[in-house]
């Protein structure tokens, strides 16, 4: 008996591991996730109620003596509980839940964010109604209270874009553009995750989501335009970055590095995490990732740079962290 109790308590502890406020459908910060949570609770209460009723009925039916019910009464019970009641309940639930699936309307002036899934990171481009797109990676910032349309694509294999606290998930399919329209209602720092198996590091493909007050967001987006600040060419890290050929894959706006193969690093120092939401942004982590990216993310496309000394890797890391 004591063992059973222990197992039950341990089981509940496992469930508690799911409790958090930064990546949970049950802790929404967006209007659509709020609707999903509402629907979930309505369905859960309804399902538990029906299951309880059926269990009670089964218990009664099994214990009832033969002949307790006439054939006519039995047939009527089957007609009502087996036909009419389930039909009406299901029809009601369908009619109740369908309006939740209506997509949010989007106006031409609304902010559009193109997100492209890559193995194993996110290419992000902000397209405001005016001005050139602003490129970023692995971090998405959105204004609170405004409608935002995500245009979702994939560069290699199928991925799925899921920010549980903001809205439902939507697949990213090569050769196709899916649109997900959302609205955040609460500011804060949250987390998203790739929700479709996409390769070795699928589980390590996360992203940071920052919901900001509209005025702060506008100022931030304006600050993202133009060349990278801190891209001073004559520091040791910048020279190493150029000499090692990092610009063959990465872009740092305002320098010779302009490739679009890998993540854009122009505002690298502003991000809170490294390697698509996996490691905290510290100089040592950046240096370690540069030398052995496979150790953090198996299957990653970035080649390793084991020939770099600790000091050299740290110099590049410091240079990258200075890009703001």
């Amino acid at each position, binding site marked *: 008996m004591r063992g059973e109790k222990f197992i039950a308590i341990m089981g509940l502890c496992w469930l508690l591991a799911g409790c958090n406020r930064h990546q949970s459908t049950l802790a929404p910060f967006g209007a659509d996730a709020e609707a999903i949570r509402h629907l979930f609770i309505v369905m859960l209460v309804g399902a538990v109620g029906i299951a309880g009723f059926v269990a009670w009925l089964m218990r009664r039916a099994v214990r009832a003596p033969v002949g307790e019910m006439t054939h006519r009464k039995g047939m009527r019970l089957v007609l009502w509980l087996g*036909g009419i009641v389930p039909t009406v309940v*299901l*029809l009601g639930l*369908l009619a109740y839940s*369908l309006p939740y*699936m209506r997509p949010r309307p989007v106006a031409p002036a609304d902010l559009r964010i193109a997100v492209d899934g890559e193995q194993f990171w996110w290419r992000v481009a902000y397209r405001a109604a005016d001005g050139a797109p602003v490129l970023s990676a692995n971090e998405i910032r959105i204004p609170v209270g405004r409608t935002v349309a995500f245009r979702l694509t994939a560069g290699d294999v199928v991925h799925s874009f899921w920010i549980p606290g903001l809205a439902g998930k939507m697949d990213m399919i090569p050769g196709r553009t899916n649109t997900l329209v959302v609205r955040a209602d609460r500011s804060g720092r949250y987390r998203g995750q790739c929700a479709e198996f996409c390769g070795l590091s699928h589980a390590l493909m996360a992203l940071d989501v920052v919901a900001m007050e509209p005025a702060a967001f506008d100022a931030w987006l304006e600050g993202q335009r133009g060349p990278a600040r801190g891209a001073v060419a004559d520091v040791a890290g910048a020279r190493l970055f150029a000499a090692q050929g990092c610009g063959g894959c990465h872009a740092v706006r305002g320098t010779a590095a302009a490739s679009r193969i890998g993540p854009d690093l122009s505002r690298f120092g502003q991000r809170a995490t490294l390697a698509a939401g996996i490691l905290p942004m510290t100089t040592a982590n950046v240096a370690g990732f540069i030398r052995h990216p496979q150790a953090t993310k198996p299957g990653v496309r970035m080649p390793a740079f084991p020939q770099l000394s600790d000091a050299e890797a740290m110099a590049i890391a410091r240079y990258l962290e200075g890009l703001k």
Partner: protein
Amino acid sequence: MRGWLKRAHGLRVTLWTLIVPPSVWAVHFLFSYLWAAVSCAKIGRWARFPTVFAIGTVIALVVILLAGLIAWQQSRTPGDPPPHNEGTDIDRLRFLAFSTLLLSGLSFVAVLFTALPVLMLGDCR
């Protein structure tokens, strides 16, 4: 109406009548997809009120209802109380008629369940 019901009573329910309701359900299901695809391709957005689709749905429901009505009439053939599981003509008729009636009920609800999302979602994306 009474005369009409009498005529329905005179009809013999066969396996062919049995498959009418589920077939209508299947055709309506296909029609829903075709209507959505053609409508989105031709107009570019969801029709504000899908008239053609509503008419098609009503026709499907009426056909299922008629099949159910005939089956109901047939299943009321007088005789001994259930169960009707003998190998006689009258029991076979009752079985087919009752099965058709149940299938009509199922198909009617299924057509409604298919039509509701089409009428309420309204999105071509």
